[in-house]
């Protein structure tokens, strides 16, 4: 619960504003982000050979904590001169808690410690204190030893682990180690790629050399489903093979499932249909939500098991039904995009197809719904207030249907996906000639570009570390 304090606060703040403006109003200004814990993180020092690694260490620690979006970082210029290196420093007439909890830093929390080179390892002694306490024994929240190799990688590792422990104290999930799967055309064709939460270590995952898109990752992080146009084998006529165009004929789009552990393709039997597209995994990671023309009519929503069997049709309409996404908490509520009312809008229903209601107002195009990890909110793309195609990212509190707009006219913004921490949102945006992937906090602040090469789109944020 704690981990969504920020979001709940910002949505609540927005809701108040919405009601003040009358039903259906949308705030266009940046939402007030509420109170965050304030923390001071003075640079740590290292003894012996560890000192030369402290530049990497201190910047990693500070950036991870700041990047979480869940702490208010106190500027280093406001810190007292005397910086503690271990708890005993507070007892020797040195620095006092008040130096940190009082002005100018006004910190609630202080992270401190030191490193040393021992047995060819870097050893971090790290502490987190609640400096508003009067009694040092009750102030300590973290006091821990971390070990890493005596190099930059090792110092980065111990800094990330220390940051993760600190974030955990505030109910935050660390994103360190999580992967973002996305579609990139940088190889010449659209393929699935993956990268770290901060954009580092970008790797190509598929090599189908046609059009591969719409990735979905299972909640347990072991499998990925996506949609590919298979390249058809050589043609019936030997002459035709001499025509480049003929050789490149593509088959109808199909669902592929791969293991993220081995990278291998798993068996998935596609329906006989002009199109099959993967959309989402159920919380058990053993069933897929897809949209398909298996009915030989308009694209409809279905559930299948992991090899394509046990087909259940969920919608029965004479309109386009796409992008089903299941509530990760309940496993019972779906949101999806339907053209049944005219322009595509976001609807909600039970997984058995009953209790259908429209969530968006009917204005513009509303597409790309994505549930937050707590199952309370959806992020989505909406052209409301803009020309067709000019999407912005919105977040809706599904219970109240109040919406907050996160992007504001900066390019074409689509395919929002939630980070496992429920606080960050990843999305794609065309802000120049190309489409690139960005992250931001769920209040629209701290926008960070992650990609630069080619066009990159359709990000999904996975707990997977593969």
């Amino acid at each position, binding site marked *: 619960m704690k981990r969504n304090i920020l979001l709940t606060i910002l949505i609540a703040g927005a809701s108040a504003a919405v009601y003040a403006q009358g039903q259906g109003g949308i705030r266009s200004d940046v939402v007030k982000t509420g109170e965050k814990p304030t923390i001071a993180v003075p640079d740590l020092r290292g003894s012996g050979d560890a000192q030369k690694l402290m530049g990497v260490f201190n910047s990693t620690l500070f950036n991870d904590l700041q990047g979480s979006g869940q702490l208010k970082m106190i500027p280093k210029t406001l810190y007292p001169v005397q910086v503690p290196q271990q708890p005993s420093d507070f007892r020797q007439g040195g620095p006092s808690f008040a130096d940190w909890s009082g002005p100018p830093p006004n910190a609630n929390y202080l992270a401190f410690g030191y490193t040393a080179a021992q047995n060819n390892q870097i050893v971090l002694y790290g502490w987190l204190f609640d400096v508003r306490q009067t009694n040092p024994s009750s102030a300590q929240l973290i006091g821990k030893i971390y070990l890493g190799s005596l190099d930059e990688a090792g110092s980065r590792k111990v800094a990330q682990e220390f940051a993760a422990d600190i974030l955990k104290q505030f109910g935050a999930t660390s994103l360190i180690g999580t992967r973002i799967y996305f579609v990139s055309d940088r190889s010449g064709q*659209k393929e699935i790629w993956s990268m770290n939460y901060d954009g580092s270590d970008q790797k190509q995952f598929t090599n189908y050399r046609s*059009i591969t*898109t*719409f990735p979905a990752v299972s909640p347990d992080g072991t499998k990925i489903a996506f*949609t590919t*146009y298979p390249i*058809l084998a050589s*043609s*019936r*006529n030997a*002459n*035709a093979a*001499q*025509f*480049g*165009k*003929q050789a490149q*004929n*593509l*088959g*109808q*789009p199909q669902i592929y499932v791969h293991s993220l552990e081995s990278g291998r393709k798993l068996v998935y039997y596609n329906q006989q249909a*002009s*199109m099959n*597209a993967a*959309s989402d995994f159920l919380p058990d990671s053993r069933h897929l939500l897809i*949209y398909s*023309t298996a009915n030989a009519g*308009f*694209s409809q929503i279905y559930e299948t098991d992991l090899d394509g069997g046990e087909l259940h049709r969920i919608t029965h309409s004479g309109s*386009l*039904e*796409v*992008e089903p996404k299941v509530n990760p908490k309940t496993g019972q509520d779906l949101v999806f*995009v339907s*053209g049944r009312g005219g*322009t*595509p809008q976001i609807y909600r229903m039970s997984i058995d197809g009953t209790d259908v209601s429209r969530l968006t107002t009917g204005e513009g*195009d509303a*597409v*790309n719904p994505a549930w937050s990890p707590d199952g309370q909110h959806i992020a989505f*793309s909406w052209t409301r207030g803009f020309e*067709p*195609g000019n*999407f912005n990212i919105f977040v809706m509190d599904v219970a109240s249907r109040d919406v907050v707009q996160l992007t504001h006219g900066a390019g074409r913004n*689509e395919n929002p996906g939630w980070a496992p921490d429920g606080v960050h949102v990843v999305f794609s945006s065309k802000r120049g000639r190309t489409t690139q992937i960005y992250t931001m906090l769920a209040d629209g602040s701290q926008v960070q570009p992650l990609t630069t090469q080619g066009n990159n*789109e*359709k990000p999904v944020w996975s707990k997977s570390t593969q």
Partner: protein
Amino acid sequence: MTDSSRLHASKPGAVTLVAPLLFTVVLFMVVLFAASCAKKAPPPPPPPPSTPIATAPPTTAGPVIASFTAEPSTIEPGQSSTLRWSISNATDMSIDHGIGAVQSQGMRQVFPRTSTSYALTVRGPGGMDSRSVTVEVSNAPPPPPTVRSPQISGNELLSQQGQDAYFDYDMSEIRSDGRDALTRDAALLKQILQQDPNFSVVVEGHCDERGSAEYNLALGDRRATAAKDFLVQLGVPADHLKTISYGKERPQCTDASENCWQKNRRAHLSAGQ
């Protein structure tokens, strides 16, 4: 929507004419290229075994033809073969068929029209030697696959004369201009199928860039299906028609303008497999 209908009346027609023409030219060049490649294909046979220089030289060092080869030994009319030779202890060396005197090491390209035996004759203080090689000129190769063969003819006809059916934004209903286009397409397809009863057609559905990729996949599927159903109503056999939706993944125009968007909201016919 009215704007797009008006635009459609002139613009897309012009584009559909130019694109197939270009494609045809490229196609023709590909045929030529592929055909000429095929002619060069026969693998050269291994060279004949050369006479080892070391074997039993005459007591007075007589002239020796160490090697005399033609490569390739089999050619097609108009192609060349290369004669190579290596001679020792000779003062007077010549090859017939108008080549004449040659040096002791050398090569020469020849262009025989028919199969020809080239004789190398050498003389020296120790006597004389001669050797001949034959360059086989094969019969005329089979003609390259021509644009007259049914499959290619169908492809060509379709890419030259096939017409796209255009759609309104977010719609998959066939407009009146689309009916006209598909009516002409139906007649064309029946003509092609008469020539080549095995011919198959892919009806592609495309969308402009403005909708979401996911929704456009489903919308393009409807456009392709609507066009296919219309063709079937006009008597084109359904089992020769297959649909595929490219959504907005294969636009033929990438500007952000209604003119361009209209070009991309289409059903397009291409040859299947």
